[in-house]
């Protein structure tokens, strides 16, 4: 089966489920999440089969202008599918909170769309991974973003969720504006929106002769136009991945959004942002003319992001907000890796980040459902209420902090390895301070789990799906930490 049909399959699945929900909804609408996850698993299996046999990679001529299966596309497609499947499973166990905030009688009557929207976002993310033209990037990005506007504000009877939705909408629209405006300037300067052509034109070997309009590149005004357009695009990508100074939306939106959606935002959406950033920026980083400039912008972004994310996380008392700042901090590390040109290391980092973040959100979701709180204090005495869950959370937090022999350390090690020698020493020092600060705020959770007295003695029940997911993700955190080859081979396999 050709790879490009898998996106159609995913969209078809979404449409089918919407219709089904409208005309023949099951009594318990949360079941839609399971069906969606099953459907996406089929899509994932098809994708993996294609990757294994290397077949179905051909793209018909009418699509090839906008679509590719080469490069990092397959990795980010699989990444989007895996994240969406996990998010849907997480939504299933999160249903009681969702019901409470969507209807007056705690019924599931208004939650149907919630379980189908992630599928559309997934289709957008997959297309984005394959997009080779600024226009198709923009369109797929919009499909993802607009779906997210709805999902973030989905708990309509919850003020926090609404507030998050409005903030995300306004700032998201602003960043979209930046992106379109930047694309327009880039088009004005280069005469094309095709990234392949842009890459060829900018490549050092071409000598500016490949593409007719660029013969006029000697004209400095075009040069500035290109740089201006590029910086606007970087700004809007910075918004996507949560890089300072475009990170302001993250804490509020992450805190207000339903927990599975927060997880989705912080993993899949961020990864897609990095995927697009790699696709757009790589030609510029590789060019002689712009390489140093783009790298410098990235280095500054990385330093600011690391500082902001880690220092703000120190004072947080709300765990969801803490994870929001931590996601900014992780983005800072990955931007540092990008600035060093280590794209594959960034992808390994993303794999480790997916494992740990989803595990943390699974546990947070459980606590939210049963204690109705996202505060760190809700984790007080978790070790007494459920020792196994407490241990899992300890491992996850140690991983996030980057304690060796966990997945998180592998990621940080790779970023430092890449950065030393290719980014300025001051940024590395900032990264060290940030990583040390990370120990403080992640260990705050461990402290709450073991040192503090629980408010209730009520044991924390873990539903079946969450239990399996948490066990798998926790074991993966350690396995990848001890044998980093696992994560590396996943990335290599997808290339």
């Amino acid at each position: 089966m050709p790879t490009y049909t898998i996106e159609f399959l995913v969209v078809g699945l979404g449409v089918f489920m919407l219709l089904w929900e409208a005309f023949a909804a099951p009594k318990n609408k949360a079941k839609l999440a399971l069906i969606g996850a099953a459907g996406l698993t089929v899509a994932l299996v098809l994708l993996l089969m294609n990757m294994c046999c290397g077949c179905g990679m051909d793209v018909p001529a009418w699509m090839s202008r906008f679509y590719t299966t080469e490069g990092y596309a397959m990795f980010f497609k699989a990444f989007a599918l895996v994240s969406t499947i996990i998010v849907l499973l997480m939504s299933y166990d999160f249903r009681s909170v969702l019901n409470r905030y969507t209807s007056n009688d705690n019924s599931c009557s208004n939650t149907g769309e919630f379980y189908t929207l992630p599928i559309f976002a997934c289709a957008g993310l997959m297309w984005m991974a394959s997009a080779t033209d600024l226009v198709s990037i923009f369109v797929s990005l919009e499909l993802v973003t607009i779906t997210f506007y709805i999902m973030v504000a989905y708990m309509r009877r919850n003020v926090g969720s609404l507030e998050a939705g409005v903030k995300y909408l306004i700032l998201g629209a602003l960043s979209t504006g930046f992106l379109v405006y930047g694309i327009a300037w880039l088009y004005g300067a280069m005469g094309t929106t095709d990234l392949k052509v842009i890459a060829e034109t900018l490549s050092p070997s071409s000598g500016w002769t490949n593409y007719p309009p660029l013969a006029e590149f000697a004209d400095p005004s075009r040069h500035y136009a290109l740089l201006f357009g590029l910086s606007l695009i970087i700004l809007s990508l910075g918004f996507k991945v949560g890089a300072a100074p475009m990170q302001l939306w993250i804490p509020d939106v992450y805190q207000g959004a339903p927990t599975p959606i927060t997880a989705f935002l912080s993993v899949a959406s961020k990864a897609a942002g990095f995927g697009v950033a790699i696709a757009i920026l790589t030609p510029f980083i590789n060019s002689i003319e712009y390489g140093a400039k783009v790298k410098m912008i990235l280095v500054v972004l990385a330093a600011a992001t690391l500082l902001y994310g880690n220092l703000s996380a120190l004072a947080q008392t709300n765990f969801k907000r803490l994870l929001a700042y931590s996601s900014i901090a992780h983005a800072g590390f990955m931007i540092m890796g990008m600035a060093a040109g280590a794209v594959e290391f960034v992808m390994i980092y993303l794999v480790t980040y997916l494992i740990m973040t989803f595990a943390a959100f699974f546990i947070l979701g459980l606590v939210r459902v049963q204690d109705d709180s996202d505060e760190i204090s809700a984790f007080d005495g978790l070790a007494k209420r459920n020792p196994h869950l407490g241990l899992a959370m300890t491992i996850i937090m140690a991983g996030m902090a980057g304690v060796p022999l966990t997945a998180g350390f592998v990621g940080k090690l790779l970023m430092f390895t890449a950065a030393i020698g290719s980014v300025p020493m001051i940024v590395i020092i900032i990264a060290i301070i940030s990583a040390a600060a990370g120990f403080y705020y992640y260990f705050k959770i461990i402290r709450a789990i073991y040192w503090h007295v629980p408010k209730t003695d009520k044991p924390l029940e873990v539903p079946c799906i969450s239990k399996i997911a948490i066990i798998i993700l926790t074991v993966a955190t350690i396995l990848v930490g001890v044998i980093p080859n696992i994560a590396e081979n996943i990335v290599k396999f997808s290339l």
Partner: protein
Amino acid sequence: MLLALILIPILAAVGIYFGAPARLTALGAAVANIVVAIIAIMANSVFSVEVMSSLEINLSLGFAKDGISIVMLLLAVIVTFAAVFSGSAPEGREKLWFSSILLISAGAIGAFISRDLFFFFAFHELALIPTFLMIGMLGRGDRKEVAWKTTIYLAFGSMVLLVGLLMVVNDIGSFSMDALRPIAAEQQNTVALLLIIGFGTLVSLFPFHSWAAPAYASAPAPVAMLHAGVLKKFGLYGLIVVGYKVAPDGMAHWLPLLLVLLLCNIIWVGLITINQKRVDLMLGNSSVMHMGYIFLAIAALVDNGSSFAMQAAVLLMFAHGISIAMSFCLADRIEAKTGSLELNQLGGLAKAAPTLAFLFGLVGMASIGLPGLANFAGEIMVFFSGFEGWEPADGLGAVQIATIIAIWGVVISAVYMLRAFRHIFQGDTSSRTEDATDLGVCEKIPAILLAVILLVVGIYPNSILQFLP
């Protein structure tokens, strides 16, 4: 074989978590590890498996030719056994207690037998979380604050260290510790400083020492024994097998700074130690102070490059590891018998507990450096190594002057140790010491084991030195 050394304690910890009898399993694992360690050393086994191909990281374990890792491994398994044996877990917390001890031990063993910088660093860090939890949950006094302070200090030190190590890897192009060689000259100074600060923080080098004494005072006895006795030696081990190897000129560049800092460790912290009013704080500070001597041996190694200085450092590391572990073990017993560690609340304990008094006196003498005990052999070698290859015609160099000043540390040790002994065991009995009982059979075993080792190594230092060519 070598992998088993790490896996036995980890698997035992997992087993304990899932309900195996805690004390028995832990003891079994500790004994098994001693046996396995001896076999592995005799067989000189190696183990290697690749875990990350793009950076060429291997999980490779083995003993370097310089033999330091053999001595450190012996120290680790012996102290682990004593730590598991001594002290008693609080009611209902046996799982956490014993699995933490085993995990700390696994981390220390792993760090000492790794032949790859990645795992060398990683295994040491593995011990951080159980230490944090143990101090924070089962410690004494301001345990939470102390646990925080310790963790942040150690995490910061580790991060600095990590960057230093990565710069080394970047230059050499391999994580393998067998490939270590002097790096490019222009980087040596930076790397050496990073390594001195990084490793130094982990070994409580002045001025990064203030975490150590409160941490050891607050920590449950086995953790203090393992950390002060074994884990802390990681930093010194690292400075010798990594720092000196990759940046000999850089270390020489920072030698004056190192000398000043280590003298601060010996004299400054020594004077602080004299002022302590609690046994545990005194022991914690004394352990910080004694690190100064080992740094002095490293300074001598950098200065004159003699293998004698290296032997001195390693012998003293071993001797100090055993003696400080024994001290903390006995201090814990004193508290168990009398309910207090305040010097002015104790007195005359020797009447009620003569064995305890004898053993504490023995280890006190050892840490002062009485001939016939292991520490004496180490310290005397350190002082000699400062003058190794020195000709009177040269005049006194910085290292020689530092050595002469450092010798006064012995006097300081004598002051605080003898004073502590007098306050605890002699004089009039207090209400706390009147009804105290002497050590039971089980309590004697770890202390006597450590005491015998101190004596054997003291009388026949070659038992350790034979491993060091």
